[in-house]
């Protein structure tokens, strides 16, 4: 009889632990999923901005057209990453937590991270090019307030005569 009680008790404890573990895992997955939604919404909000930069915005700067194009790309990606930074950080945390919580997690999660941080990678490329521009010109671009808010990049490039 004692043996049967012990077996029953062990199964009971195991099932509680199993349910707890599942809840732990599903909470990690839910937080991961919610963080994806937040990244999507943050990006959408910024990208919906259809503002076209005024055609005379760069008139006072003695930079080449190539430099102006580089600056435009840099500020475009900067405004988007500024908008999504917090959401992307939350995603990366949720992704790491999920990875550690889920022993059977599909191995492709690292690739999925690549999709989420893609704009940040584009920003990095744009920043490297931007840093080749002289300090003087960069200082001038940095003072243009319009470049620090989301804008429509191709239409702006056309308006600025850079396309």
């Amino acid at each position, binding site marked *: 009889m004692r043996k049967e009680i012990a077996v029953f008790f062990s199964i009971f404890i195991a*099932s509680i632990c*199993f*349910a707890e*573990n*599942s*809840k732990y*895992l*599903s909470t990690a*997955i*839910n937080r*991961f*999923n*919610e963080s*994806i*939604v937040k*990244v*999507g*919404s943050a*990006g*959408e909000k910024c*990208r919906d901005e259809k503002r076209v930069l005024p055609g005379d915005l760069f008139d006072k700067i003695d930079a080449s057209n190539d430099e102006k*194009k580089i600056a*435009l*790309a840099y500020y*475009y*990606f900067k405004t*988007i990453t500024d908008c999504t930074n917090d959401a992307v950080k939350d995603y990366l945390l949720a992704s790491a937590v*999920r990875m550690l919580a*889920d022993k*059977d*997690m*599909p191995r*492709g*999660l690292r*690739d*999925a991270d*690549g*999709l*989420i941080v*893609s*704009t940040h990678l*584009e920003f990095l*490329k744009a920043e490297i090019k931007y840093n080749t521009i002289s300090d003087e010109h960069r200082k001038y671009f940095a003072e243009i307030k319009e470049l620090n808010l989301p804008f429509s*990049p*191709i239409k702006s*490039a056309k308006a600025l005569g850079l*396309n």
Partner: protein
Amino acid sequence: MNCPDIGQIKFSQTSISAINDIRSRQLFSNTLLITMGAGTVLTIFSLGSSLPETSYSLYSTDFKSMSNAMSSVPTLTKQVISDIAFRAQQDVKDYKEKKFWEAVYEGCSGL
């Protein structure tokens, strides 16, 4: 914008790199969908032998979260494609290629 009538187009190396970039990001997007689906499905099977209350909780919360996240993936993919299209549009020299990438970036309707 109106959908451009580009006709014959020969892609430069810049465009081909951008197209390959988009293809790889679409693979990431598929991976993300699989990751979300597999995670939740595994959880469902794990909870299959558990208490009914827990199963109800899974249905109402977990599926909603998975569904919301899944519907965000096309948005995220579109954003990534836009970034690549903008970069390509700036980098290519050929007029037709510029038009092509502009249409990819802006989207288009009608003719």
